[in-house]
């Protein structure tokens, strides 16, 4: 399914002005997204996972937010490549909802309570297509059917409060796929739903995006959900990417201390655990500009270099005989967990501008 690159993000940095100072919410984030691929982005609250993805389409509040550097080249199916971060707002509005769709976390508050769900879908269709009037309405009904709302034609005139949480999230998905986009950015789409509904939404998203070969950026803090849906995993911490690679690779061979901590903290079925495992310490303050490893204060492998400079991305190879870039598995750590030793000071990090995520067949 995967093929050409559809989105290329390089050195993205986002800051927020606050009363207490500047918050460096996103630092130097780079990644590639392939067509039809699902990129899982995990990290704790405040790790910058949502902010980095929302800022790609300038959906953060500006001010106080500010994109201070980076590029995000979007390569649509039919059309010229554009750098989203350089586009004027009017142009951006043509891409939002048309080429790039969104599904948000809380379906309870993400739909306008005073507008019928049908109208909220039709609004997007009307904006981005030539369709007008009843044809537009028919398309919205069709979309409602597509996401599995029974009695779609009657449901068109319902208001969000007449829908359950799961059904509202399906409406959000209908809005997201309305114009057959290249990418859907899903910001914790299942977090606010109960577990059975979660599974239903995950299945539906997966089915629809595969069917329409839509790339998905799935933001989550639920490693379990991501494991089921993502092709590539990107772990964020303190506003930076700390590890990235094919999902099976990262789960089986985590090579960043934070990822190891995260996976270790997952409760295991059948294990007699009295307490949940946690990562000691607390998340870093993002007020000061990043000059050291964000995880240094909590890391069991920490040494002096981690506090003196910021680790670039290194290849975290699978086995010694293989080409180190074969799995596209990278980690931002000065400690080589593969070989269980500190990296040589002369070992260079990866040039992110040339690097592509998840180079599988």
């Amino acid at each position, binding site marked *: 399914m995967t093929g050409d690159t559809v989105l290329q993000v390089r050195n993205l940095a986002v800051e927020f002005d606050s009363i207490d100072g500047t918050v460096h919410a996103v630092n130097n984030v780079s990644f590639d997204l392939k067509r039809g691929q699902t990129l899982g982005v995990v990290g704790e609250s405040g790790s910058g996972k949502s902010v980095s993805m929302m800022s790609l*389409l300038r*959906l953060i*509040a500006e*001010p106080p937010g500010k994109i201070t550097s980076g590029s995000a080249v979007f390569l649509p199916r039919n059309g010229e490549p554009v750098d989203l971060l350089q586009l004027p*707002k*009017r142009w951006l*509005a*043509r*891409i*939002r*909802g*048309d080429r790039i*769709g*969104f599904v*948000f976390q*809380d379906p309870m*508050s*993400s*739909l*306008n*309570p*005073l*507008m019928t769900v049908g109208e*909220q879908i039709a*609004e*997007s269709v009307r*904006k*981005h297509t030539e369709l007008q009037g009843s044809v537009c309405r028919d398309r919205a009904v069709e979309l409602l059917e597509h996401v599995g709302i029974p009695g779609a034609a009657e449901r068109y005139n319902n*208001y969000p*409060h*007449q829908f359950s949480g799961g059904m509202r999230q399906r409406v*959000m998905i209908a*809005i997201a796929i309305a114009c057959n986009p290249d990418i859907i950015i899903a910001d914790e789409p299942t977090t606010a739903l109960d577990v059975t509904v979660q599974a239903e939404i995950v299945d539906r998203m997966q089915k629809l995006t595969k069917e329409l070969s839509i790339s998905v950026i799935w933001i989550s803090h639920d490693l379990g959900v991501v494991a089921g849906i993502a092709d590539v995993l990107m772990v964020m911490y303190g506003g930076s990417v700390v590890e990235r690679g094919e999902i099976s690779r990262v789960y089986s061979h985590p090579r960043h201390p934070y990822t190891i901590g995260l996976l270790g903290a997952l409760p295991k079925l059948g294990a007699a655990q009295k307490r949940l495992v946690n990562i000691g310490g607390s998340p870093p303050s993002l007020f000061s500009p990043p000059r050291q490893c964000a995880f240094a204060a909590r890391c069991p492998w920490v040494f002096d270099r981690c506090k003196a400079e910021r680790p670039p991305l290194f290849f975290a190879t699978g086995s010694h005989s293989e080409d180190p870039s074969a799995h596209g598995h990278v980690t931002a750590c000065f400690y080589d967990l593969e070989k269980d030793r500190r990296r040589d000071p002369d070992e260079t990090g990866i040039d992110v501008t040339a690097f592509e995520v998840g180079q599988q067949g």
Partner: protein
Amino acid sequence: MQRYLFTRVIQSGLLMLGVLVITFFMVRLTGDPARTMVPRDASPERVEQMRVAMGFDDPLIIQFARYVGGAVRGDFGQSLHYRAPSMRLVLERVPATIQLTLAALGFALLFSVPLGIIGGSRPGTIWDTLARGFGLLGQTVPNFWLALMLIVVFSVELRWFPTFGRSGFASVVLPAVALGFFPLGQFTRLIRSAVLEVRSEDYIRTAYSKGIEEWQVLSRHIFRNVSITLVSILGVQFGYMLGGSIYIESIFAWPGIGRMINEAVQARDFPLVQAIAVFSAGFVVVLNLLTDIAYALIDPRIRYED
């Protein structure tokens, strides 16, 4: 929807009954009603005569029944001062007051809606400063002082508008501005904060994520939600203005209910005061009912409840 309306109508009826009870006892709590209705130096015989004439010698319960019976038919007795049916006098003054109130509200909305929206959607800009300035000014400048200043500047100096009375469009301008200045400030502040609040709602982000242009997000998504707030203050303010226009109507000699309250109280014209009190209360109750209906029309969550 029907149950919602039915409940509101019943509640309104109960409220009016409460108003009747209060206005009835109001007269009796301020001393001997017969004595308050005659000149201070009247003879005891004259007081007694008044007591019998007004039926104040009957048991309270009978008096109350008579009062409610009259009120239902719109009969509050003869005005002592005008020697004419009280309610008829009130109704004669209603058009003038409603004209003034509508003009004042129109003036307030004309400026507060754009100011509040611009201020709320562009916080921190010069427009926002302007909106907040107007908001503060409107709520702090006393309207009687403003009325006098308007007369000094626009009637006496510039001679653009008449100083008093009700004669055509020009005469309503100054009283409307004086009366509408407070709600102008209040509306601006409320609309501004409502816009600020709605703007940060998740569904507004959804609208932007669909690629909707800013002005459409504003008109279709933000303003519709802000109008719930607007309708609620409009209802309250309309009712409040009936009472608040006592000064303004007196200053501009506007022949409305506000000025009549002033006259009736000064003349100790109890039947007229009662008629005005019941009428004004009824007006506010009806306004609240209309506000509730407007809520239901705007907000489907209320419309489809139950």
